[in-house]
């Protein structure tokens, strides 16, 4: 009897502990969101979106250049990362034999695991060193490298989940393999692929480490893509580690804007995926 009571007590205590673990971990997200909204909202005004950053001591100013800069960097990254990830994924899922895809899949996972700061060093060695100056190109290239493995694996995974009956049906109608892929398989998997691409964009949009010595940051507008360019994550880093209160407020505002953008991208990707799932069922 005693033994059973003890076992029951252990049971209840441990199960409660796991519940507490869950509450603790989930509440962290709400703490982060709440604190960021509280601090960011107070510092956020219209100027933030329209004005250039000011020197310490001058109040006001914004981060218009960093918002546009981040957009440009993401565009460059997407222009390289999405085609490579998509086409590579098509190869892995639809062509390819055994060994070659395995090797490519393995290196894609390897690339995915490379620390972002090391990606930054690589982009520095191949673009900044030969060009002799920091540039938006180098930053965009670094970000694209982080995007490729995500897009590649998502494309492959969702193409593979398309039932073989669809492939066979198309081929039986006399369509070539290319025609089958373009008109049947990819459309069937498009929601999943889109989700992967959005997640890739969301991941790189918050990265600062690969930009530190590639696109560098810039307090003004970049005249062209061969110049250093500002980015929101870099601005947050720079402002948060500065000693000025004005700068801290700007960092909070930038943090709020960045987090909202990243969360919206993540929610959008889930929404796309869930819509795809219901559409296929219906």
């Amino acid at each position: 009897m005693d033994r059973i009571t003890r076992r029951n007590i252990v049971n209840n205590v441990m199960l409660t502990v796991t519940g507490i673990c869950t509450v603790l971990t989930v509440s962290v997200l709400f703490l982060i969101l709440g604190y960021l909204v509280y601090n960011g909202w107070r510092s956020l005004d219209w100027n933030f979106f329209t004005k250039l950053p000011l020197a310490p001591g001058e109040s006001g100013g914004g981060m218009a250049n960093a918002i546009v800069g981040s957009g440009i960097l993401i565009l460059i990254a997407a222009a390289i990362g999405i085609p490579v990830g998509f086409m590579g994924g098509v190869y892995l899922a639809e062509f390819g034999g055994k060994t070659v895809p395995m090797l490519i899949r393995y290196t894609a996972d390897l690339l995915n695991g490379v620390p972002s700061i090391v990606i930054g060093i690589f982009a520095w060695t191949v673009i900044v060193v030969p060009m002799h100056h920091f540039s938006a190109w180098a930053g965009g290239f670094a970000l694209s490298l982080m995007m490729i493995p995500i897009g590649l694996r998502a494309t492959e995974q969702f193409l593979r989940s398309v039932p073989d009956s669809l492939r066979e049906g198309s081929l039986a109608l006399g369509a070539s393999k290319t025609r089958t892929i373009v008109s049947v398989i990819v459309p069937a998997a498009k929601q999943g692929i889109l989700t992967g691409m959005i997640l890739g964009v969301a991941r790189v949009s918050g990265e600062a480490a690969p930009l530190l010595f590639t696109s560098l940051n810039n307090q003004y507008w970049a005249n062209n893509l061969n110049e250093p360019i500002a980015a929101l994550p870099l601005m947050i880093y720079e402002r948060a580690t500065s000693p000025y209160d004005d700068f801290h407020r700007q960092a909070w505002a930038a943090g709020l804007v960045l987090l909202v953008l990243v969360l919206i991208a993540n929610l959008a990707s889930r929404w796309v995926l869930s819509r795809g799932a219901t559409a296929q069922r219906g």
Partner: protein
Amino acid sequence: MGTVVATAPPQTRPRKMIAFWRDGDQISHLVTFIFAASVFLVTVFLVYELWIHSGPSRAKFGFNFLAGTTWDPVTDQFGALPFIYGTVLTSFIALVISVPLGVGAAIFLSELAPPKLSNACTFLVELLAAVPSVIFGLLAIFTLVPLMRQYIEPFLKHTLGDLPLFQGPAYGVGYLTAGVVLAIMTFPFIISISREALLAVPREQREAALALGATKWESTWQVVVPFARLGILGSIFLALARALGETMAVTMVIGNDTGIHTSLLSPGYTIAAIIANQFTEATGDIYLSALVELGLVLFALTMVINAAAQLLIIATTRKGSKPA
């Protein structure tokens, strides 16, 4: 007749080739292969570039680079040990906190919570994984660092001050703070992958244990968790790889000290943090290539851990996917 047979193949082969190319299958095969191969090539090129650019440093210091404890740009003396130590120590602190918390939450989400609640919580935890590193750093600087300095570190010194681990003034920044930030950043990975591994455990395993009279906890801890142990271990390795390579948040709270300290309260440095801080300011070939070599060391470290994580996760998903 014989001549017809002999001339037939040269006529049909080009025609077949033309048909092949008109379908475009060969072309699309080739084009997609080029894109896929570029992923392989760029990764190989990455390793090559790190190797070449760390050349001067490797030539000068050899393997002593890994064991050297001085980091002095003025005299061009560079050793990586303080940074390797800081990287491993902060990641270890992170795991000490995030493993029990993450595995506990994963157990709750897979074994106890109703599916709807479980999915909702997992969704929130995975959103946490999407929060950018700089934002963790921003919050840590303004909330965690003052908290550590004023309350937690004095408390630790007061209660555990006899240990060499809790010596020196409470700066707020240092190994312990970086470890706590890393713990928060890594537990989403542990929760979401461990939960998958636990959910993949066949239902019969649980039912058998319960039928033998085990309590819910006994069935979970003695049957379900051991069954999923490889997947859980894989999630921990994945979290470790993330923690080792994490840059921005750590750079903002590590305290930037190039020494090796036993006290967890002391400021330190990690490999990623020193690269982030000094790369743009580095002057001279040896200095730069020493930083690149640090990048190479970090790359090697995370690759080994990542490979182990992949193997473990593959091993369990295979086992779990088998019909029981």
